[in-house]
């Protein structure tokens, strides 16, 4: 069915997806968070009727708008990139994957687009109440769009609610609700949107800290910090909670990803959690090298977090690659054998149908059905290919979690000191406040690295590897578009940062 060619092509297509997604993800979490913050600010204005809150709202909205435009620009590519670079994927799972994308457009994007115009240009054109309503609609619309795209992404991590149709050679949806409410989709949505709220709050804190350092717009800055640190603190706590949930679903649905981001090579009962560690770069599947050069471990915690049951067995990379019969873990080596049978039988089924041999077709189909759960593994050449890059996944995960803890602290301190009106003199803290936004970006991008690099080599977990999901196209085209996007997005990004900084410098009074 498939030649294993085009690794270079696949890698460029992957690089392109990583590039466009990570660019897009600079702007989206800010949209998710700032939209709600603007809605809070405006609600306070409408409630109190105080002019200063109106000015404050409009200042943050202006920054929101600059960010929003480039978020839209980088987003449209992603919507169509599934088709351009991952055409086999689009065909094989379009029956399921297309629906959330279409729903996203219909129910979320139009809400954003329509009410965005009111939020920006409607101050004197519609009533105060309707304007506030519009601002809330923009916030709800952007977060709804996150819901649908994360449902789609969650389905790639944990394909559910579908069945393979051998006649069409594609997967078809069987249960919409299973797709929508899959545990992975739920944990993705909650973790990702709350991380966006967190980032939006850091943005407000960062800019406000800069004003306080410069001694400008002090009143506005402090007001903004209070709202943002309350929202940020709540979000950060929720991020931790949902992050734990995400790790739990990983342990259940994507154990290889969990093993990679924990650096767990040999499965253990009562496994410990690595709080901090340096990986041994020479470690390979199946060897006996020590996986860490240095590590600090909390005993027993991983078993507790991964399975919600102390002392339980957590499979490591080696168990998942070579199997561990004592613990009832089937290895990728065995799955590959079964997957190859599935592929063979599918081909035999197709052939028999072409020849009109119903009996042979029926036999092949039955056999295929017995093995189809391993279909994707049949495209792998060696069991080691089932292992994602461990280093990037491990470090990204640990950076994300460490920063998450730090943010809780930052929001808390900012809240307390601002409430006591003692924030102004704290130069070191304010500097940290300015810096925190960049740490936030690192944590947020790292999260996607964990989720997506940790999923390799799969486009659809266990069912479709990226090598099969790709488009049949020459490498040159994908390379060219890669650089096209790299250059364009970089230029637009520099422009955006320049405009943003200028607007911050101008401040809430001017235009």
């Amino acid at each position: 069915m498939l030649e294993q060619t085009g690794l270079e092509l696949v890698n460029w297509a992957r690089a392109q997806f990583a590039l466009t997604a990570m660019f897009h993800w600079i702007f989206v979490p800010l949209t998710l968070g700032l939209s709600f913050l603007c809605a809070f600010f405006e609600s306070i204005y409408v409630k109190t009727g105080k002019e200063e809150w109106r000015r404050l709202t409009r200042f943050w909205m202006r920054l929101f708008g600059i960010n929003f435009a480039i978020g839209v620009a980088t987003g449209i590519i992603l919507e169509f990139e599934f088709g351009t670079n991952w055409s086999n994927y689009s065909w094989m799972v379009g029956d399921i994957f297309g629906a959330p994308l279409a729903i996203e457009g219909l129910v979320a994007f139009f809400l954003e687009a329509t009410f965005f115009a009111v939020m920006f240009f409607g101050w004197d054109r519609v009533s105060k109440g309707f304007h506030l309503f519009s601002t809330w609609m923009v916030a709800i619309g952007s977060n709804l769009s996150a819901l649908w795209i994360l449902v789609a992404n969650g389905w790639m991590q944990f394909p559910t609610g579908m069945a393979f149709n051998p006649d069409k050679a594609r997967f078809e949806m069987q249960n919409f609700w299973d797709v929508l409410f899959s545990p992975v989709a739920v944990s993705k949505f909650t973790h990702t949107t709350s991380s966006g709220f967190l980032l939006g709050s850091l943005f407000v804190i960062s800019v406000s800290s800069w004003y306080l350092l410069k001694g400008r717009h002090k009143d506005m800055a402090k007001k903004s910090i209070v709202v943002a640190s309350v929202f940020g603190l709540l979000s950060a706590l929720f991020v931790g909670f949902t992050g734990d949930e995400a790790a739990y679903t990983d342990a259940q649905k994507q154990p290889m990803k969990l093993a990679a981001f924990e650096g767990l090579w040999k499965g253990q009962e009562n496994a410990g959690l690595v709080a901090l560690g340096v990986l041994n770069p020479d470690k390979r599947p199946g060897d006996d090298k020590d996986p860490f050069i240095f590590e600090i471990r909390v005993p027993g915690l991983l078993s507790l977090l991964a399975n919600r049951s102390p002392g339980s067995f957590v499979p490591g990379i080696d168990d998942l690659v070579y199997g561990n019969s004592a613990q009832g873990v089937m290895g990728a080596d065995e799955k590959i054998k079964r997957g190859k049978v599935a592929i063979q039988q599918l081909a035999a089924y197709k052939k028999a149908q072409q020849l009109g041999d119903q009996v042979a077709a029926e036999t092949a189909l039955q056999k295929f059905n017995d093995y189809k759960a391993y279909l994707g593994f049949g495209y792998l050449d060696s069991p080691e290919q089932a292992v994602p890059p461990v280093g990037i996944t491990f470090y990204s995960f640990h950076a994300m979690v460490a920063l998450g803890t730090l943010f809780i602290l930052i929001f808390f301190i900012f809240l307390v000191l601002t409430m006591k009106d003692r924030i102004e003199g704290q130069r070191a803290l304010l500097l940290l406040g300015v810096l925190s936004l960049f740490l936030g970006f690192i944590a947020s991008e790292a999260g996607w690295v964990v989720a997506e690099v940790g999923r390799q080599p799969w486009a659809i977990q266990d069912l479709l590897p990226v090598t099969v999901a790709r488009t049949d196209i020459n490498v040159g085209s994908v390379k060219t578009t890669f650089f096209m996007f790299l250059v364009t997005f970089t230029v637009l990004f520099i422009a955006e940062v320049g405009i943003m900084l200028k607007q911050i410098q101008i401040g809430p009074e001017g235009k």
Partner: protein
Amino acid sequence: MIGNLDLSTLQYIWWILASIVGSLFLFMTFVQGGQTLLWQVAKTDDEKGLVINSLGRKWELTFTTLVLFGGALFAAFPKFYATSFGGAYWVWILILFTFVVQAVSYEFRKKPNNLLGTGTYELFLFINGTIGILLIGAAVGTFFTGSNFVLNEYNWVRWTNPLRGLEAAFSLFNLSLGIFLVFNARVLGALYLVNNIDFSGCKGLEPRLRKAVLVNFLCSLPFLLYFLVKLLIMDGFTIDPQTGVVSVVAGKYLANLLAMPWVLGLLLAGVLLVIWGVVATGLKEGTSGIWPAGLGTVFVGLSVFFTAAFNNTPFYPSKADLQSSLSIFNASSSHYTLTAMTYVALLIPVVLGYIAYVWHAMDSKKLGKEELLSDEAEYY
């Protein structure tokens, strides 16, 4: 009730829905058309500001309609999405690219410290309105002229022309559809601006816009005529309803229009409505020409999409391998997915409803110069 519809009914419904979204997009290209008029009709900075801000309140709706068109095709006809985007790679990439640069241009154009300068962002808007729309037209043209692809037994696409979709722009037929759409967008853009702007502060702009309506309409005519005449006389692709075999027959699209007189009716009504809008605004003093012309554009769009796909016609034919051609029957999603999506589609009237409400609320007062100068307002 929706749960009981059979597969082929759902396939028709979804082609109609996708066609409606696509045709609404064509109407909404008044934004792109307006963008290309910028340098021509607006002589001063104030006038430019008015044009940009008037369009700037709508550009996202157009953009979102395009995204929804793509999303709806993905959900309802995934084989088309996979084949066309993966196959006709370059034509889609270039189209998307023009929309990427459009998306930042309104916001960045006048902002201080914007790196590239106002002129560059205006150029981006121009490129989006010309090349972007032209290529969309060329891509739609391939619904009739066919493309070069082969699907294997797993329905994976192999494109047999090295230009990967750009070859579409080298057919006179596709090209004339594209150019017609560019001029039509300019007609609509001028009509919209006449309707949306309060000219009391800048008298010169109005007559220039009215003239643009007329001139661009006249420019669009030869391309529309070429497209239509060619469509009626060209060979077309047909599916044998018994065997499903695809073949080429003479006069297929003429036959489609004759077999579906209501589609012919839509086409003629559409053209007449556009003419009405043009005459009312270009020759007379009317300001509401955008509405009949917009509706007319939607009608023409619908008739084109229906002619391409109904009456046993493959809407995405392959010249390279006739039997790989895509029809609404072999390219669609499963019965389950189409049913689920049809429930979702019940929201379309709600969405259209609030868009119309907000549009009215925001535009009941025309956009004037004072508003842009006032300290209170936000503007691009």
